[in-house]
């Protein structure tokens, strides 16, 4: 049987009228970033900013979340110009990039990663075996690490992911909403039931550092025993440099509120310290 998510189309306001979490919820089994045999449910996320004339997607969800992305286009985006920023060229993040770019009206890509990204995707209506990509069609605006982009009232800072598994992963920070988009990091709060909220705000909702460490290594497999003080220092620096009220990962619950964010950062620092080695091997 073809597979369907448990909750196929979710739109959750994070900053009403401005920032939304778009996505779906799936069972937590058979996900590579979770342990074998995991139970519960997992939110799959992308994010949408709405300005009067412009809509900005941060990531696009895997293909299974297409109904949610289509719903957001229909109900929220309307005829706004569309900009899309993927944090990684992986199917969790670009699974609906073709769907968005095919929408037409002045769609543009914000891109600071690597690879010929416009060839990695197809027009959503193309038959499976037909190549119908966006090479020569979609303009690309640079979003290189260490640079910023103003879009209307929004201000995005683009940066190399502080902790990453995949080469060229980027994070993004948006100043007006104080939101940090963390791709595949900080995704360690899950749902016990399919209908549970995907937005977590309670400071005591966080698992402890040992559990977080176990979660991190399921994705960032090089960390155990690594001697990487520069990585730990940069993570701590990024998390202190930016005034963050919302942490927005591509999977796992969205973490919001200063208390939960601060506790999540402290626990992440502790988990990273516990995973790594203070001395060279």
């Amino acid at each position, binding site marked *: 049987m073809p597979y369907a998510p448990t909750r196929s189309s979710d739109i959750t306001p994070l900053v009403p009228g401005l920032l939304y979490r778009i996505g779906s919820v799936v069972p937590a089994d058979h996900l*590579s*970033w979770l342990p074998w045999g995991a139970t519960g449910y997992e939110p799959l996320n992308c994010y949408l900013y709405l300005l009067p004339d412009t809509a900005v997607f941060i990531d696009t969800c895997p293909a*299974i979340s297409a109904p949610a992305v289509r719903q957001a286009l229909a109900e929220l985006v309307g005829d706004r110009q569309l900009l899309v920023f993927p944090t990684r*060229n992986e199917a969790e993040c670009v699974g609906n990039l073709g769907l968005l770019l095919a929408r037409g009206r002045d769609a543009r890509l914000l891109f600071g990663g690597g690879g010929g990204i*416009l*060839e990695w995707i*197809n027009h959503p209506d193309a038959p499976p075996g037909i*190549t119908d990509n966006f090479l020569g069609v979609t303009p690309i605006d640079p979003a290189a690490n260490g640079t910023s982009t103003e879009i209307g009232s929004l201000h995005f800072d683009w940066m190399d992911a502080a902790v990453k598994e995949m*080469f060229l992963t980027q994070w993004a920070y948006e100043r007006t909403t104080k939101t940090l988009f963390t791709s595949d990091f900080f995704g360690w709060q899950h749902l016990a039931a399919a209908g549970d909220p995907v937005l977590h705000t309670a400071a005591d909702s966080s698992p402890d550092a040992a559990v977080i460490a176990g979660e991190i290594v399921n994705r960032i497999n*090089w960390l155990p025993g690594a001697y990487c003080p520069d990585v730990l220092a940069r993570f701590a620096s990024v998390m202190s440099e930016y005034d963050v009220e919302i942490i927005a990962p591509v999977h796992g619950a969205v973490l919001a509120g200063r208390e939960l964010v601060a506790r999540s950062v402290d626990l992440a620092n502790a988990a990273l310290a516990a995973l790594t080695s203070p001395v060279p091997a």
Partner: protein
Amino acid sequence: MPAAFRTYITSGRLPVEAAPGLHWLGGCSDSGTWPGREGIRHTHEHCSSFLVVGSAKTVLIDTGHFALWYAVEGQLEQALGGRQVDYILPSHQEIPHAGNLGRLMAKYPNSVAIGDVRDYHLFHPEIDRERLVVMRDGESVDLGDSEFVVLDAVWKDLTGSMWGYDTRLKALFPADGLGYVHDHEPAVCGLLAADLPEDYQPYEQWRFALPFIGMKFQSTLPGVRRYRELLEKHPVEIICSAHGAPMTTDIAEFTEIMLGVIAENRSSM
């Protein structure tokens, strides 16, 4: 109109039958055409996949980069010679390795994907879950005149990375690892490592060993030990990296050079 330089190109040399029943498919990524890199010196990086044709069944190791489908589809048909794809081992979930899984499973409706097949139901919800078959380290499928064994990767890219081994060919498929001439000049695309000009000097020639994020922060000696243990259990005479030209000769010498580079760990990311 935005610039339209194709990044994913292929050599007319492919497919190449690197050994009887072992076919090299795919193409290259031209990093000089990546957005933001226009104008830099062009080097190519292999994006390889491999077909093993057994007496009864076939297995495709990696699906080819999504962007190379225009080439891989025909190469595969040619290599199959009228046979069907029976098994597909995507070494891990990245698009250069697994991006054509949906297309392949649509074209070859009796094929099944094997290995660490987590996540693919999210990327290809149209695929029946029954066709995504989890296989663990050491488990195998019967190709008729050989067994194709799925192995836990010694060096991983994504957590779900798996390697493969064919018992007839004594061929190892180490996913992202061990990709000799990972970066190369366009003139040598599609050449087996053994057929490279004698004076050829590949770029970053030691990068082949360690293209994995984070390895520079680790001792690589445990991995070297695990690789030697793997060789004792699964003797290797051919190495087919997803980011390299197949190595079909001088494997013992190459292996010692490679393990020496890995043990030194001076060039990793």
